[in-house]
């Protein structure tokens, strides 16, 4: 029988796997590095409240001071609306912070996990 501590560790591993697995309804999430979470701070260029995925086009100023555009995808509107998101949650010009599972190949894309609006409101991509 497993010792309690080990059981908890296994449970956490299982939960994190399930968590990682819920990211995409429409396609495999293999292109995202699930082991990595990056923080992006930027300005919303466009919010696409669409199927099969919603997208946040984010203007980010990189370390060299240059502006670059990121394409960050998330769940479909039917799932997001049940988690408190709205079609009008993001507007061009909004300054937000995102937690993102980045693309493995280093492209300026990824899957959002959580966003923080300018007023401190936090919205998540998952219900757990």
């Amino acid at each position, binding site marked *: 029988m497993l010792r309690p501590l080990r059981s908890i560790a296994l449970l956490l591993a299982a939960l994190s796997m399930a968590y990682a697995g819920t990211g995409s309804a429409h396609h495999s999430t*293999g292109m995202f590095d699930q082991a990595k979470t990056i923080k992006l701070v930027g300005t919303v260029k466009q919010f696409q409240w669409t199927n099969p995925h919603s997208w946040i086009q984010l203007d980010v100023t990189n370390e060299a001071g240059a502006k670059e555009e990121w394409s960050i995808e998330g769940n479909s509107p039917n799932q997001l609306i*049940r988690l408190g998101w709205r079609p009008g949650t993001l507007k061009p010009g909004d300054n937000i912070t995102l937690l993102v599972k980045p693309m493995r190949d280093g492209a300026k894309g990824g899957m959002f996990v959580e966003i923080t609006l300018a007023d401190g409101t936090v919205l998540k991509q998952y219900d757990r």
Partner: protein
Amino acid sequence: MSVWAAEAAAKLPDWSGAWQLRGRGESRASATNGGPAKVGERNLPPYNPAWQKKFEANAELAKQDRFPDPLSFCGIPVGYPRVLNLPDSYEFVVRPERVWILTENGPNLMRIYTDGRDHPAADLMWPTYTGDSVGHWEGDALVFDTVSIKNDGDTIFDRNGVVFSDKIHVVTRLRITAPDTLTADVTVIDPGALTEPYKIVRQFRRIEAGARVYDYACRENNRNPIDASGKTLTLGTDGRVIDLAK
């Protein structure tokens, strides 16, 4: 409504509302999203040697993220029993003569005839994604039989490589097993691919009262097309591929 229909309807269970798959398919039997589960955590189908090889080849493709999933192609039904393995919500519409399973995700609709009819004669059937389903009520349980399912490459059960042959025949038992919990006991009988029946359990929880079910048009803004090699691409708003890796 006739007196017969009213009496028959009164005996039917209440499966109203919207439902969501528990664990989003990440159950012990098999996972639908999120890549391969660890060996030992899943109960793989009892494949015969030829289909075991096919599964292993699929699993290898899945590892490379190139295992084709009809769901990713947008607009193709996922097939049965994959219909019971989807994200987003479900509705179960129960009438005396028929039950419909409607999925919010994708163009999936199961029609289960419960008016006493049998499957069509062989010359009136051809393989389709969702097949032909006839059922009956055993108390509060709907038991239905599904045949004539298009398979062997056209549909999959999950993204880890589980597939069945065109000899697939599925028996499903659906009933409320706990408050707001609908349990599907699924038995896959497939003499083409399996050495014995494969049993899968799926559970759905009723989501909040009054929940709406929404449009899901997969081609509305599909910025993740699949290329000829099976790789999922990511497009920018201008339609150009942003992936750096080939």
